[in-house]
């Protein structure tokens, strides 16, 4: 059934992957397959392990259990460099920019462009500046002075730099951890356009988002995480926006919420009782 959906070959796959931080078990027995020309959405509550999952894919962390294969070969990255060299580009949730460095240096960091005249030694600074300016302009961020330290940009502007960078250098796989979180409506639209464009160009995309609208708009496959375990894996055909929202909200949905908010007559709303349901989302369990 999945085969019918897969528009291309398998780019990478995780099987039964697990990961602990000290005594915190962040991931357990998670599997995921990414095919070329596919957008795979990873959804889940806060602390569900989404970022951990993509950090493993990106080579920032190593998995403790299970196998991770890229292009059919099992891998175990020591550093994100290796993932980048295999064409896996990532936007991290906590951004991975160096605040004091100029925007353009951040944009090209780790993938600097040398000048041929100097045997690639000397940076092609002007070209890099221009590229940065263009890439940002395309996202609706018109930054004249790309020599500004990136730390002085607004949150959304920084996010745009990180996304533009990944899009620019992503060769086969694009991994986006909540890319649209800090973005305005227009910028979000641009990012979603990029994502679909990347898919159409044959890249595989792993997209993490808390916005069911966004997810449903572009996703081909949905993987649901709950407290570090897989709580569902659906191809697009199997699941509608409504159901997706319900699953993401863990039972309640936004419509119900708006209903509730319209009548603000809860007994003591600042102290909602700790329901059994919230209990269930405890994210931290010791290992057996």
């Amino acid at each position, binding site marked *: 059934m999945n085969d019918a959906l897969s528009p291309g070959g398998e780019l990478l796959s995780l099987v039964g992957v697990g990961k602990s931080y000290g005594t915190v078990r962040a991931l357990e027995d998670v599997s995921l397959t990414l095919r070329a020309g596919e957008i795979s959405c990873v959804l889940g509550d806060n602390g569900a392990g989404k970022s951990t999952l993509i950090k493993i894919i990106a080579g920032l962390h190593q998995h403790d259990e299970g196998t991770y294969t890229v292009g059919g070969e099992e891998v175990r990255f020591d*550093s*994100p460099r290796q993932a980048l060299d295999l064409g896996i580009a990532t936007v991290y949730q906590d951004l991975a920019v160096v605040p004091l460095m100029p925007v353009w240096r951040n944009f090209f*960091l780790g993938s600097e462009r040398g000048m041929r005249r100097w045997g690639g030694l000397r940076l092609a600074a002007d070209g890099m500046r221009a590229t940065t300016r263009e890439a940002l302009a395309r996202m609706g961020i018109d930054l004249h002075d790309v*020599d500004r330290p990136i730390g002085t940009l607004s949150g959304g502007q920084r996010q745009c730099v990180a996304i533009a960078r990944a899009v620019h250098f992503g060769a086969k796989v694009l991994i986006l951890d909540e890319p649209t979180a800090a973005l305005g409506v227009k910028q979000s639209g641009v990012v979603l356009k990029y994502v679909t464009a990347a898919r159409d160009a044959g890249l595989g995309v792993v997209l993490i988002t808390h916005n069911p609208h966004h997810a449903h708009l572009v996703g081909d496959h949905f993987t649901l995480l709950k407290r570090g375990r897989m709580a569902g894996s659906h191809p697009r055909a199997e699941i509608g926006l409504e159901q997706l929202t319900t699953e993401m909200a863990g039972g309640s949905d936004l419509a119900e919420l708006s209903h509730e908010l319209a009548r603000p007559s809860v007994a003591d709303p600042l102290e909602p009782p700790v329901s059994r349901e919230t209990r269930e989302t405890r994210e931290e369990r010791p290992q057996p």
Partner: protein
Amino acid sequence: MSASTTPDLLVQDRPAALRRLLARPELGSLIAAVAVFAVFAAAAEPFLRVSSLGTVLYAASTIGIMAVPVSLLMIGGEFDLSAGVLVTTAALTSSMVSYQFTAVTWVGVLVSLATTLAVGWFNGWMLGRTKLPSFIVTLGTFLMLTGANLGVTKAVSGTVSTKSIADMQGFETCRLLFASEVNIGGLTVKATVWWWLGLLAVGSWVLLRTRFGNWVFAVGGDASAARAVGVPVARTKTVLYLGVGFGAWVLGQHLLFSFDTVQSGEGVGNELIYIVAAVIGGCLITGGYGSVVGSALGALIFGMASKGIIYAQWNPDWFKFFLGAMLLLAALLNAYVKRRAERGPR
């Protein structure tokens, strides 16, 4: 709604360029250096003589040669407390190898280079392997080198200083390279000044114009972010330590070939002076920001202040007091200029 077309959009080029100039980390130190110069030019008549200029330049160069790699290292976010004694190690190694094996001095010089690079590599390797703070790692190296300098010298020479190698083959050519001086219209320029300028140019170019320089800023600014985008953090830092080793080698050879013999106990404390030069020159102690040219200005400020007080014949008992006050004032002026520059031309 109303702000869709601002006519002044076209003139934005100039302020941006100006601001870029003003925001350069070395601007403040340049002005501070000029101020220190002005103070002593006014306070000390001999300070303005050409021969004094040579002395000040020489003093600055012996700090500056090390300040270049040390500032790069600090921009890369690390310390090197062993830099001071490593210079002595370089001189001792060179001298003892040549003497003991009765070899051409060039052999000693090369063995010395290998030694300082090895120490630099050891620092970088320890740092990467153990994840200990560089303060502790290089403190360990510092103490061990201090001990080894003395222990080896005593074991080999029987005293705490080396034997003279002035009569050995190759000494003269080595001296030419490391310790000669040229007279340019009354101004005596020592070889260290050329080395300093050379290192300065190379260091500054590497930092600002190469991929490696980009990595230096990145590992100092945020090592984990740098790692996440594929910068080889440990390797970058190791190379920076190798740079310090190279600088120590140059200065060590200068000491040896201009003074013939080397005292094994020297160099302790100089590591701080190199760091001071880098910091006065605008390097952040936490890394990620600074400039190589600034470190040169820092070395110049230090050299001018420490020799200027002598020329001005201020009470020698208060020497350190004046030195501290001058440095503090220079740093203050530097910070003030930088803040003014950042606030923009209003």
